[in-house]
């Protein structure tokens, strides 16, 4: 690990969140590690279904039933200096509720469905303030006005009494950021906050988040599938595939020295300005397997160009360090040449292979 100049705010260690459905167990998150320092931006990137949203929800303990965290550790350093393990908390308990919205808050992709249509924007901001801080209603209202001002909503004192449907998409997302910032959280989790927005609005929202971050020193965990956005804002990146953190490292390493075949494939499949016009794009073969048909061994092996027979399909790769805090889950980077499984993780269950042979 690189020397930590600043203290670690959040550390997620080998977290597994599984969904116990009637048809079987869906391993939505199956061993993810990440650490986030104060003031930093960490991007979690992956395609739909890779478990990035469930991972974010696991931190706040808002995973919907029948999902639950089955193992792992989520240590979070509170404002008072105490470190607590969020994974051990009762998701309905008083403790986690004092953290949600106060220490960690979250903004979601679709502001229309995350905001209440029957409450004004102002009352939704004031709710968060009154819940966590010992202030009067009039003080809370004053704060709400200044928050709306801060996130760049024009005529803030008027808009306080507006309903969410009266605002445009970009303004709604700003209102949601205002709610999230109401209690000056240490960590902001942003789950695809700009995906539903136009590029121009997206640029404004990204600028807003980084300005706020510079002012308050909060850390941001940013979930996205857009590699362009990652390149714009990230300090550190975690690439996820089928519930695993297949590669993690600082943003420059991920974009300029990607190691995992999946990361490389993702980078090659984005249309680029310098590529020759109308050239064919690199495309990954196959598609993301159904969650019940998770391939054994490395979950990426059926789609991988560098697949090693009898190894990739049987051995579950551990996390190998390839310099600095750049680590990758791929047998190609196993330190010992003979890729013998050194007990890095549990042997693959043979039952998992059944569906993949179809």
């Amino acid at each position, binding site marked *: 690990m690189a020397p930590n100049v600043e203290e670690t705010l959040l550390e997620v260690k080998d977290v597994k969140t599984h969904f116990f459905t009637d048809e079987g167990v869906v391993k939505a998150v199956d061993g993810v590690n990440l650490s986030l320092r104060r003031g930093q931006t960490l991007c979690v990137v992956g*395609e*739909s279904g890779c478990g990035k949203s469930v991972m974010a929800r696991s931190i706040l303990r808002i995973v919907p039933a029948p999902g639950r965290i089955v193992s792992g550790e989520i240590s979070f350093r509170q404002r008072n200096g105490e470190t607590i393990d969020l994974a051990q908390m009762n998701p309905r308990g008083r403790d986690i509720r004092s953290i949600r919205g106060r220490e960690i808050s979250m903004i979601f992709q679709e502001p229309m469905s995350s905001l209440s249509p029957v409450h004004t924007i102002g009352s939704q901001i004031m709710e968060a303030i009154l819940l966590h801080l010992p202030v009067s209603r009039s003080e809370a209202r004053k704060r709400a006005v200044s928050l709306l001002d801060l996130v760049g909503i024009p005529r803030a004192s008027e808009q306080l009494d507006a309903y969410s449907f009266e605002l*445009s*998409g*970009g*303004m709604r997302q700003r209102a949601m950021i205002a709610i999230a910032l109401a209690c000056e959280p240490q960590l902001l989790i942003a789950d695809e906050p700009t995906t539903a927005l*136009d*590029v*121009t*609005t*997206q*640029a*404004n929202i*990204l*600028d807003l988040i980084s300005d706020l971050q510079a002012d308050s020193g909060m850390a941001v965990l940013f979930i996205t*599938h*857009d*590699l*362009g*956005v*990652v*390149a*714009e804002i*990230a300090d550190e990146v975690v690439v996820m595939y089928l519930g695993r953190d297949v590669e993690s490292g600082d*943003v*420059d390493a991920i*974009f*300029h020295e*990607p190691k995992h075949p999946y990361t*490389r*494939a*993702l*980078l*090659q*499949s*984005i*249309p*680029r*300005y*310098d*590529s020759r*016009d*109308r050239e*064919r*794009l*690199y*495309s*990954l073969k196959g*598609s*993301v397997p159904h969650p019940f048909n998770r391939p054994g061994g490395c979950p990426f092996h059926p789609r991988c160009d560098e697949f090693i027979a009898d190894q990739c399909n049987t051995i579950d790769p551990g996390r190998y360090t390839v310099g600095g805090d750049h680590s990758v889950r791929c047998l190609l980077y196993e330190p010992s040449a003979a890729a013998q499984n050194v007990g890095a993780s549990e042997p693959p269950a043979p039952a998992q292979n059944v569906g993949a042979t179809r």
Partner: protein
Amino acid sequence: MSRPKNTRQKGTGLKIRPEKAQTAESGRPLLELRNLRMQFPVRRGMFRRTVGFVRAVNDVSFSIRLGETLSLVGESGCGKTTTGRCIVRVYNPTAGKIQYQAEDQESVDLAQLDNRALRPYRRQIRMIFQDPFSSLNPRLPILQIVGESLKVNGIARGAELEERVASLLKRVGLRPEYIRRYPHAFSGGERQRIGIARALALNPRLIVADEAVSALDVSVQAQILNLLQDLQEEFNLTYLFIAHDLSVVEHISHRVAVMYVGKIVELANTDELFENPLHPYTEALLSAVPKPDPRLRNRGVRIRLEGEVADPSSPPSGCYFHPRCRYAQDRCRDEEPTAREIGKDHWVACHFAEELELRGFEAIGSTPGL
């Protein structure tokens, strides 16, 4: 291609068109929009009185050349989808012409035709939709979704229909055995392939692709973009590609038209538009695109567009973009600019297009990764 007209390609039942694929510059127009206008009434009150109109498409003129991909870009609500829907005549345009060059050399105005007269042209202009989940009927098997138009038009039925649907599926990269499955059994990318197969079933000449790849993940998006390009070459298709993702647009299109509040503000060849934009709105759009390389961060100035997109039911005076334009002058408030041609094939609607020195989309030096 020296094949005789209407040669059927073996198996697929798709015609290979004798017209040679032409470059964007030399192509003759397949479709020409002239002053197309589509307005929707705004109704209020107990008696639903009409209190005003939303001009979703406001005097739009452009042409699509045979064999090219023309992209229509702009922010949500700018009227790009409405334009596409007017072309396939989901909407009846309020005014204007949609001149379509039919295969038998006759030019018809689609805007004037009634439903009956439109039928032969509906086969030739098809649409691909954005959302692969809501655009397929969940109660129908793939055979019916893809084969419906073949059946309705009396082209194939029974075993022949099945055979043709199977070969269409094969062409878009799906296994023909899936013919009896229902849409829920497919992933987003596969569903989009089904939508493409449905659009291809009747040998169309023009395909209106409305945000066809916007809902897909990057790796799936790459597969679908490649498929669309392959099909274009193979069947000499013409695409009107409606999109908001400028990196996709840059990749796939020959020409690009930029729309703002129901009007085309700039139209040019793709390279020209990206390197040498002439409208301040285009410049702002290009600067907002996130570039997939962390080393380019903070290089170049991002132009923040202040304020909101103008309300199409009460647009501002003069140039619609002037309240957000950083170069706006008095003239922009009073006088509406008309589109003019500056340079070859480069159309722009801005009073000061010649004087402004706008920045293009900076070329990215190295490809990160590999």
